[in-house]
């Protein structure tokens, strides 16, 4: 059923046409409860254990708005430089689909809580591109379907489907851009950068973890082409559920090439939804709609309007965190690293951890080194994010400080980290329990040297007599006494000094 699409080269497509994009991003909020009922939102719960009459759409059940959902929506709106509605309502979007047990989605229609904003996006070469925000509105997620009997869980060919409504009713914020024009050949890069930046904004606000691989942030890509110089937009396609940054970029690129091929051959673009395929980066036609969608939106009669108090909105505005882009640039300067090095930190997903480690007293270079090196390596081995490792930034900072103070070398520090990860306690406890401290302070080392000389008087005499090579035995004795933690070169220097010999 998958038909191979004709494509023209990306360069040729851009020679003839100007792309226009519209990006719709759904963010699943990290609230403890659903948008309209008090059901838990815990990930990974057993199927249908987090439901109630409201989110199952049982007769007579009434919704009540989650205050934290509204607050998150306003904060997102403010972070995206939006106006916040003085008064707005929820609306019913009516359609029949098994993942929506009420047979309507509670959403917002012509009265979104936030509208008319923008997000400045920094591209790889440092250029800033402003993406206009049309609106951000509140709605709810659907249940999760599993399709049985078809090939690889696809809905096509399935004999029946199984529904888990744990996710039904979880708060969603849908963020819609204005038509993005003027992107030209950088459209795929801009789309990716926008979604990446939006994800950082969401994470910075702490309203969602926004993990795309978990479906907490999902992107629909609308794209159309118009001949250069034409004002009117072409017919668009809507590629649904593009769920990684790389896929966003690829989907835009593919659709530009596909549209150009269709238009170039004298054809017309069908307004339709399309599916993105991760494996080869292509899109295929979704079900062709027999008629235009008719959701018969009307104001939700079971909920009263939301009229955010202006003083509250201003309070929320004043407490917004620094924008991620500005914060990144500030930290980059403070840490004295290149844009490329900063990008590596971001790509590794450890910016917050490095920052927290620096704030806990570590040197920025050391904090970066541990998170990007040893911890990233261990996380990779275990197949988890570095931030998920059972070690806190404060603990990493302590290890870094022990190294700076000369109490640990890198090799021993790695063992301390291993101990902390293994649940052996704080870094200092691991050092004590495992006996890991480097013995290089002259006090402890000096004592060991003195003892070694006293215990090996004959050898010491030989050294005094000029047989410098014999000092090796004394160094060995010192290292033995300190269980290998003495710095050999320093021990040797001290032995020779005490015996009045130079090399």
């Amino acid at each position, binding site marked *: 059923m998958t038909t191979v699409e004709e494509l023209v080269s990306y360069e040729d497509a851009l020679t003839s046409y100007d792309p226009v994009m519209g990006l719709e991003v759904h963010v699943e909020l990290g609230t*403890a409860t659903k948008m309209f009922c*008090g059901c838990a939102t815990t990930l990974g719960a057993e*199927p249908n254990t987090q439901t109630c009459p409201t989110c199952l759409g049982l007769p007579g059940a009434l919704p009540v708005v989650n205050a934290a959902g509204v607050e998150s929506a306003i904060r997102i709106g403010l972070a995206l430089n939006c106006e916040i509605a003085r008064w707005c309502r929820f609306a019913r979007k009516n359609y029949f689909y098994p993942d929506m047990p009420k047979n309507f989605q509670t959403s917002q229609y012509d009265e979104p809580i936030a509208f008319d904003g923008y997000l400045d996006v920094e591209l790889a070469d440092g250029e800033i591109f402003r993406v206009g925000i049309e609106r951000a509105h509140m709605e709810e997620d659907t249940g999760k379907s599993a399709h049985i009997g078809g090939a690889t869980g696809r809905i096509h060919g399935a004999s*029946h489907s*199984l529904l*888990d409504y744990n996710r039904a009713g979880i708060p969603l914020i849908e963020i819609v851009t204005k038509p993005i024009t003027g992107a030209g050949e950088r459209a795929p890069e801009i789309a990716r950068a926008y979604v990446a930046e939006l994800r950082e904004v969401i994470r910075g606000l702490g309203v969602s973890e926004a993990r795309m691989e978990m479906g907490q942030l999902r992107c629909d890509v609308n794209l159309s082409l118009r001949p250069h110089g034409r004002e009117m937009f072409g017919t668009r396609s809507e590629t649904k559920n593009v769920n990684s940054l790389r896929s966003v970029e690829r989907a835009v690129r593919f659709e530009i090439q596909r549209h150009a091929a269709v238009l170039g051959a004298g054809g017309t673009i069908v307004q339709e939804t399309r599916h993105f395929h991760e494996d080869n980066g292509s899109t295929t036609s979704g079900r062709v709609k027999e008629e235009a969608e008719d959701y018969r939106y009307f104001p939700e009669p079971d909920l009263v309007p939301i009229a955010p108090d202006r003083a509250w909105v201003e309070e929320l505005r004043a407490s917004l965190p620094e924008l991620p882009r500005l914060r990144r640039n500030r930290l980059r300067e403070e840490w004295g690293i290149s844009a490329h090095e900063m990008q590596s930190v971001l790509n590794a997903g450890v910016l917050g951890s490095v920052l927290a480690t620096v704030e806990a007293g570590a040197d920025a270079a050391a904090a970066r080194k541990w998170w990007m090196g040893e911890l990233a390596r261990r996380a990779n081995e275990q197949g988890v994010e570095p931030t998920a490792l059972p070690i806190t930034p404060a603990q990493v900072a302590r290890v870094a400080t022990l190294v700076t103070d000369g109490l640990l070398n890198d090799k021993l520090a790695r063992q301390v980290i291993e101990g902390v990860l293994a649940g052996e306690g704080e870094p200092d406890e691991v050092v004590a329990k495992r006996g890991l401290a480097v013995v290089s302070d002259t006090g402890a080392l000096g004592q060991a040297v003195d003892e070694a000389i006293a215990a090996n008087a004959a050898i010491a005499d030989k050294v005094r007599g000029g047989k410098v090579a014999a000092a090796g035995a004394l160094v060995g004795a010192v290292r033995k006494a300190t269980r290998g933690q003495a710095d050999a070169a320093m021990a040797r220097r001290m032995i020779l000094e005490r015996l009045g010999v130079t090399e």
Partner: protein
Amino acid sequence: MPGITREEVAHLARLARLELTAEELDHFAGQLDDIIGAVARVADVATEDVPPTSHPLPLTNVMRPDEVRPGLTAEQALSGAPAQEQQRFKVPQILGEE
């Protein structure tokens, strides 16, 4: 001129997944047209200074704190399901063969 046509009733019936015969369409179109005509009289008195309302009570900002409340067990949730499998609601084929 308010009112509803037979075509609009047929469209709504399709959206509502109601199978109506030609006679029923004629019948309901006439009835619905009468009802809408009656309700439309509200527009005669609702002038510019009367804002449209979607709720009878003059309330705003009715919200609850983000605190988990006990819901249904999976068994309770599924108790009204015509069919179930793997602790999930079992529904018939969503897409027909194409």
